[in-house]
C-alpha cells in the first residue's frame, strides 16, 4: 500500500519535499489547513523560517492539530522543522511543538556566508550523504530515547526518536533520496 505523506505548506521548501517524497514511492500532499491532515500517514515539516511557520500555525489552529497528529503518526522535520519539533531551544522560553527530546541551537553555524555543504555518514541511511546546511541549527544534546544518526564536527545533525525523524540539513535540496526513503519506510512500518 502506498502511504500518503503531507508537507506543511505555510512557507519554505515545500515543492522540493513533495518531489522527493513522490520519487521515494509515497503519495505527497501540501498541508495548509487543519483538514488537510485527515487522511495522512505522516508529515514533513520543511526547511524555511521557523518563526514565520509558527506564526501562521497559531493563526489558523494548525498548531494544535499538528500536535495531536504527532501523538499518533510519524513526523520528519528538516532545519526549521527540527526547531519546531525540539523540546528545548537555546535563547527561547518554551518550545514550539516540543515533541522531540532534543536541545537545539538556532543559526548555530553563523550567518549565510557560513552556510556549507559537507559529506556525512547517516546511520541506517548512507555512508556518503551530501549535507546541505543553510543557516542551520545543530543539536546540543539528546534525551535517552533518542538515537543519534549523524554528527558533523562533534555536533549532532540528525536523529530519530521512535516515529520522529529530524535533521539540521536539507535533504530536499539534493537528488539523494536515501533519507526520504528511510522516512517513507518508517511511515510504512507505522501503519
Amino acid at each position: 500500500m502506498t502511504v500518503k505523506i503531507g508537507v506543511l505548506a505555510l512557507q519554505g521548501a515545500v515543492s522540493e519535499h513533495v518531489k522527493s517524497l513522490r520519487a521515494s514511492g509515497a503519495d505527497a500532499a501540501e498541508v495548509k489547513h487543519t483538514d488537510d491532515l485527515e487522511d495522512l500517514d505522516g508529515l514533513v515539516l520543511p526547511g524555511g523560517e521557523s518563526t514565520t511557520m509558527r506564526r501562521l500555525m497559531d493563526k489558523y489552529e494548525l498548531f494544535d492539530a499538528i500536535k495531536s497528529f504527532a501523538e499518533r503518526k510519524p513526523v520528519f522535520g528538516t532545519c526549521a522543522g527540527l526547531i519546531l519539533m525540539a523540546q528545548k531551544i537555546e535563547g527561547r522560553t518554551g518550545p514550539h511543538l516540543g515533541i522531540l527530546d532534543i536541545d537545539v541551537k538556532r543559526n548555530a553555524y553563523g550567518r549565510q556566508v557560513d552556510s556549507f555543504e559537507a559529506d556525512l555518514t547517516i546511520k541506517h541511511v548512507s555512508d556518503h550523504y551530501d549535507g546541505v546546511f543553510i543557516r542551520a541549527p545543530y543539536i546540543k544534546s539528546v534525551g535517552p530515547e533518542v538515537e543519534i544518526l549523524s554528527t558533523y564536527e562533534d555536533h549532532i545533525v540528525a536523529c530519530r526518536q521512535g516515529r520522529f525523524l529530524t535533521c539540521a540539513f536539507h535533504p530536499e535540496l539534493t537528488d539523494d533520496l536515501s533519507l526520504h526513503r528511510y522516512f517513507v519506510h518508517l511511515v510504512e512500518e507505522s501503519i
Partner: protein
Amino acid sequence: MAQKGTDTVKRGMAEMQKGGVIMDVVNAEQAKIAEEAGATAVMALERVPSDIRKAGGVARMADPTIVEQVQNAVTIPVMAKARIGHIVEARVLESMKVDYIDESEVLTPADDVYHIDKKTFTVPFVCGCRDLGEAARRIGEGAAMLRTKGEPGTGNIVEAVRHMRLVNSQVRKVLSMSPDEIMVFAKELGAPYEILLQIKEAGRLPVVNFAAGGVATPADAALMMELGADGVFVGSGIFKSENPAKFARAIVEATTYYQDYERIAELSKGLGHPMKGIDIGTLLPADRMQDRGK
C-alpha cells in the same frame, strides 16, 4: 571538508524563503515588527523606495550602522542593497555578513554597463529582471535569486505584473523549443545559451523568482503568487501604512493563502489607506528605476 558559497547553498537559501514575504525596514524597531508579523527576511535600508524617489539625488548603500542594528535585532535573515556594479559596496556588505545582497536598481547605479561578477562572492545575490534576457544574464553572472523589477516605490503593481508574466511566458517558450531554436531565442533575448538550456532541462528557472516593485496591498501580494511568483518583497507599502504591524501580518497571510479569497477579504478589512501610488505613465524617463541596469 565543508564547502561554503556553493550554488546549492546560495540558491538553497532562497528556496527557504519561498512562499514568504521579505520586508524593507529602516531601523531595528521596524525589523522587529516585521519578524513578529512573520516576515521570512528583512531588507535593511536607509530609506524605503518611495522616500528615495521623494528625496532625489544619489541613493547609495545604507549606513553600516543601520545594517548592524537590524542584524542585532532579529534572528531571521537580513538582506541589504548595493548599487548596480558597485563591487566595493557589495564586498563591504559581505564582510558584515549580511545574508543576501540585492544588487538593486532602487539605488543609483555605480556602473551603467556592467553588473557585479557575483560568482566571485561567498554571499548570495538577488537581482531584478524584466524579461528572461535580464533574468538569464543575471543568473549567468551568478545571481542565486531573482525578483521582478516592477517599479519600486510607486505602490503600483502593473510593472511587476508585466515582468512576472513576461518572464514566465518566455520560460514556457523555451520549454517548447528545440536546442537549435533556443540558440536563436538566446540571441534575440541577449541571454546566455547555456542558461536557457538549463531552463529547458530543469523545466523551470534554476533559481527562485520573487515579486517586487509596487506591491501595496495583501491582494497585490496574492495576485503575484497567483501569477507564479515564489514569494514577495514588500518595500514602501508596510511602514508607510497606518498600522504597519497589522498590515505586515495581512501581507504574510495573503501570500501563504493566496487562493483563499474569503480569508483575504477578512484580513484586508480596516487596514486604512494604502499608499497613494503613482501612475507609471506620469513618471519621467529619468525616474523609471526599472530602466537602470540591463
